[in-house]
Every structure is written in structure tokens, then in C-alpha cells.
């Protein structure tokens, strides 16, 4: 019975939060942008008017017209088709890596927040040390050594972006841990895993969800920056970062090459951020207190 009531409550709460989220202008806009990009990533191979790797030397750097809506790039490929498909790789990689990062970082953070003591101190120093290194250095060292395939990028992103999650989860755990219900669970003799799963996790989940949304946007930023620098997706796979980097050289006489991917990438990242913002407000968490890490 009690179980059923809590379930009911949880369901209602999720619905309430979602309603609250959509009722805010930032949430509505953000969520629709994100949904749009997700749907686009799934259906783009079927609706793209041209093959993304089809080269046509007659069209090289040609201006937008009725046939090629965004013109053609330096290899004579249709920019519009490539822009439509440019987010697939990024969304795939970050879409898998984000939950992984939140899960492992969240678990470690909650665990050490619960255990506390000397071990926790040591772990936090290691986390600090990791955070004091620029992300791009950590990523590039791995990528240069092991290549930049999806199989390398997903675990690498998941690992490095999970480290700051540890901090958030730990802080959130500390807020919860002093409450009475955790004490009574301890007094009842519940195991650590059971306390984490049944008492801490439901209370830390809000913070983790907002953090996850933020990590997602930062991961996308990292992924496209890596592509832009030439360390990410390998050609001819269409990717916004790579497309911008390629088209940049011809920007003075063919600026249309950068416009498409710029708008696509920006709208996705802004969409995620607006959603995260609205989600944080809907859940009652102040997100502005956070700095870029």
C-alpha cells in the first residue's frame, strides 16, 4: 500500500515538473529545440535531399539557390543535407556518454558522501586535481594515443565529465544525510547499498538530473570543439564542428558554408541550456551559482 502511494506520488511529481517546465517560456522553447534536433537526427538520412558525401566539382563553393538551399562546400557537397545530418554523430556520442557520466559520477559521489571521513578527503583532493587540468588537454592526450572513434570518445567523455558530477552528488548527499530518515534507516540496520538506493538517490536525483543536462551541453561543446580542431569526427562524416572548420577558410567569399552549421549547433546547445535552466527552476535548484568547469 505504502509502496503504491509513493509510486503514485512520484508519477504525479514527474508530471508536475514536466508541466512546470513546459509552462516556462525558456523550458518550452528549449525543450522543443531539443526534441526537434533529436527527431531530426533520427529521420535526417531519409529526408536529406542529397547524399552527404556526393561530391560535384561543378558546384564547388556555389551560392545558395533553389536546388541547393545552402549552397555547396569546397568539395561540391550539398551543405543543406550535411547540416541536417551534422548532429547525428554528436548526439549519438554525447547521448550515450552523458547518462554514463552521471551514473558513475553520481554513484561515487553519493557513496563517498555517505562514507565520509579520511577516504572522502583523499578522493576530493584527487577530484580537485583532475578538475584543475583543462578538459581539452585530458581529451586530446587520449585521442591522440587511441584515435577518435566512437568507441574511444564515449568512454573518454563519460569518464572525464563524470568527475565533476562526483562533486555535485557528494554535496547533495551531504545536504540529505543529516536528515532524520537517513538516521532511522541506519538505525533500522539497512545496508549501505540499500540506504543509497532507497533513501539518498531519490533525494539527490533532482540535482543529478540538472547536472546531467548541463554535462550534456558541455559535452556537446567539447565534442564539436574537438571536431573543429580536427580531433573529432573523421571525414566524410558530416559534423557541424568539422563543417565550420572546413568552411572557415572560404568565409571571405563563401560565407554561406558556415551559416547552416552555426545555426544548427547553436540552436541545439541553447536548447539544452534553456531546458536545463527551466528544469532547475522547476525542481527548485538555483543553477546560477555555478561557474564553468
Amino acid at each position, binding site marked *: 500500500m505504502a509502496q503504491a502511494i509513493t509510486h503514485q506520488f512520484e508519477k504525479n511529481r514527474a508530471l508536475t515538473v514536466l508541466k512546470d517546465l513546459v509552462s516556462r517560456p525558456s523550458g518550452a522553447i528549449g525543450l522543443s529545440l531539443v526534441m526537434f534536433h533529436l527527431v531530426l537526427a533520427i529521420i535526417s538520412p531519409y529526408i536529406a535531399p542529397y547524399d552527404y558525401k556526393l561530391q560535384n566539382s561543378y558546384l564547388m563553393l556555389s551560392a545558395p539557390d533553389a536546388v541547393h538551399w545552402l549552397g555547396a562546400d569546397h568539395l561540391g557537397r550539398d551543405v543543406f543535407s550535411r547540416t541536417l545530418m551534422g548532429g547525428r554523430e554528436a548526439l549519438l556520442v554525447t547521448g550515450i556518454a552523458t547518462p554514463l557520466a552521471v551514473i558513475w559520477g553520481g554513484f561515487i559521489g553519493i557513496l563517498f558522501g555517505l562514507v565520509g571521513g579520511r577516504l572522502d578527503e583523499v578522493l576530493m583532493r584527487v577530484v580537485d586535481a583532475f578538475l584543475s587540468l583543462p578538459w581539452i588537454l585530458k581529451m586530446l592526450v587520449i585521442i591522440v594515443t587511441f584515435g577518435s572513434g566512437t568507441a574511444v570518445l564515449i568512454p573518454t567523455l563519460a569518464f572525464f565529465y563524470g568527475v565533476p558530477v562526483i562533486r555535485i552528488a557528494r554535496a547533495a548527499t551531504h545536504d540529505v544525510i543529516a536528515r532524520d530518515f537517513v538516521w532511522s534507516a541506519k538505525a533500522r540496520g539497512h545496508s549501505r547499498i540499500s540506504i543509497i538506493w532507497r533513501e539518498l538517490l531519490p533525494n539527490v536525483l533532482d540535482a543529478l538530473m540538472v547536472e546531467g543536462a548541463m554535462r550534456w551541453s558541455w559535452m556537446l561543446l567539447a565534442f564539436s570543439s574537438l571536431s573543429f580542431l580536427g580531433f573529432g569526427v573523421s571525414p566524410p562524416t558530416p559534423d557541424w564542428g568539422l563543417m565550420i572548420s572546413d568552411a572557415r577558410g572560404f568565409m571571405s567569399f563563401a560565407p554561406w558554408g558556415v551559416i547552416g552549421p552555426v545555426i544548427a549547433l547553436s540552436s541545439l546547445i541553447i536548447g539544452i541550456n534553456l531546458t536545463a535552466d527551466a528544469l532547475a527552476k522547476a525542481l527548485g535548484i538555483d543553477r546560477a551559482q555555478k*561557474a564553468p568547469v
Partner: protein
Amino acid sequence: MIVMLMRRILLGFITVCLVSIIIFSGIEMLPGDACTQYLGEYQADKELLEQCRKDLDLNRPAHERFREWAGGAMTGDLGMAVDGKTKISTIVGDRVKNSLLLAFCAMLVGIPLALILGIITGLWRDRMPDLVISTLAIFAMTIPEFVSATLLILVFSIWLGWLPGIVLTSASAPISEFFPEILLPVIVLSLVMCAHIMRMVRSSVIDVMSSDYVQMATLKGVPYWQMVFRHALPNALLPAINVVALTIAWLLGGVVVIEVVFNYPGLGRLMIDAISDRDLPVVQSIALIVASIYVCVNLAADLLTMLANPKLRTVYTRK
């Protein structure tokens, strides 16, 4: 307070030590070393490889080499680059100077602007100026740096032709030669920075303005602006110090993309080049420098917060 300070310094030192261990062991664990890189295709020759490792002292146990490297780093000697001829400290020195210059200019523009905008948006919360500025800030914060940089180059150097879109100055040139080329990278950086700090200041101003003592001051009949400047702002700006510190640390270490876009000869581009060339000694040194700067800046921020916090100050004088 002194005890707290000593504790923070000690923790910072421990962090730097940990970083150096992580960097060293991380690079040690990766396949390949300076010799396989130096020899290139000749690395198949076991004898040559052995000889090279002997010359570069690479066949000694890792902990011994670590002690030597860390000891050298403390005295400012970072060792040799992988070509075995140039001292790392000379290569890195100029780049650090250039990165500092870029960061300093961006701070000079970004921080005051962020404070002013943060206060404005905080005081006029949810009204027109706040909505406009906050929306713009979200754009500035979330759009990838290479995107905004590309757009700014397109507009200001290609279409309007006002500013040079790329830095052609060499790494060792005197500071004066970086102008006006440095302007566009500074604008991009300060935009991002300004957005982050502004949001922080805004939420903190809103927080303080709704606090009891501000209400008390209003009820006592303190004029609005006097109340804002004397009672609210000093408390509201305190938490901003930490965000500013994090942003500065990010400026010094993480502006790799901007440096590449503008071809700016700073630490970030050196890092990319060193990683692409697998010049591991240089990578190690840069990582150590950036991490130390990060720790120092954060330490300075904590110290400033302690000094500026009226609560801590009164505790101190009462003693």
C-alpha cells in the same frame, strides 16, 4: 583565520602534487614514449631504441624519474623538449606571457562589464533590461567559442573590415605588437566570461535584496541608492570573487579553441601543437603550469573572500 589560511595553502599544495603525479603517471601509462616518437619509423630497430632510451635516461624506474622531474619543476627547470635541444622553459615562457596578456585584457573588459550588468539585471529583476540582458547572456554563454569567433571574424574583419581577423605576431614579440590584432580574441573571451560572472552577480544581488537586513534598512528609511551601495552590494559581490577566479583559471588554460581560431601564440596553441607532435615533456610542463595557476587563482579567491567578508573580519578584530 591564520589556521584556515594555512590549511587552504596546504590543500592547494597537495592538489598540485597530486596533479603532477596524475600527469606523470598518466603519460607514463600511455603506449609509446619520447623515443618511439623521436625515432619514428626507425623504432623497430631494438638497438637504436635501447640506445635512445639510455641517452634520455628513460630506462630508469619511473618513480626515480618522477622525483627528478618534480624536483626540477620546483626550481623552474622543466627539462628539454623532445628534440633534445631546446629548453622547455624558454618555449613556454613566451607563451605564458602571451596567455597572461590575453587573459588580462579580457578581464579588464569583462569583469567591470559583468559587475555592472549583473547589478542592473539583479535590481530590475524580470523587467525589460533584465530580460534582454539575461537572454543575451545565455547566448554568449552557450554558443561555442569557435562559433562566436567565426561569426565575429565574418562580420568585423571580412564584411566591415574594421579589425584584423587573425594574429600574425610571433610568440616572442613585445606586447605592443599584439595590438590591434588581439582585440577580436579579447572581445570573444570577455563576452563568454562576462556572461558567466554576470549571471552569478545577478542571482547574488537578488538574494541579498530580498534579505532581512535590506528590508530593515528600507523600513528604517535609508535612501534606496545608499542602501544598495552601502548595505546590499558589498555582500552581494562577495560570492562573485570565486566565480571570477574560476573564470580566470579557465581563461588561462581552456582558451585553446580561441587561440587556434585566431592563430594566437599562447599556451593553448602550444599545447595543441605539443600533443599533436607527441612532445610529451612539453605537454607535462604545460599541464603542470596550468594546474598550478588554477590552484593559485582559487587560493587567491578564497583569501580575498576571507579578507573582504565583513563577518570574518569582525571575528578577527574582536579577538
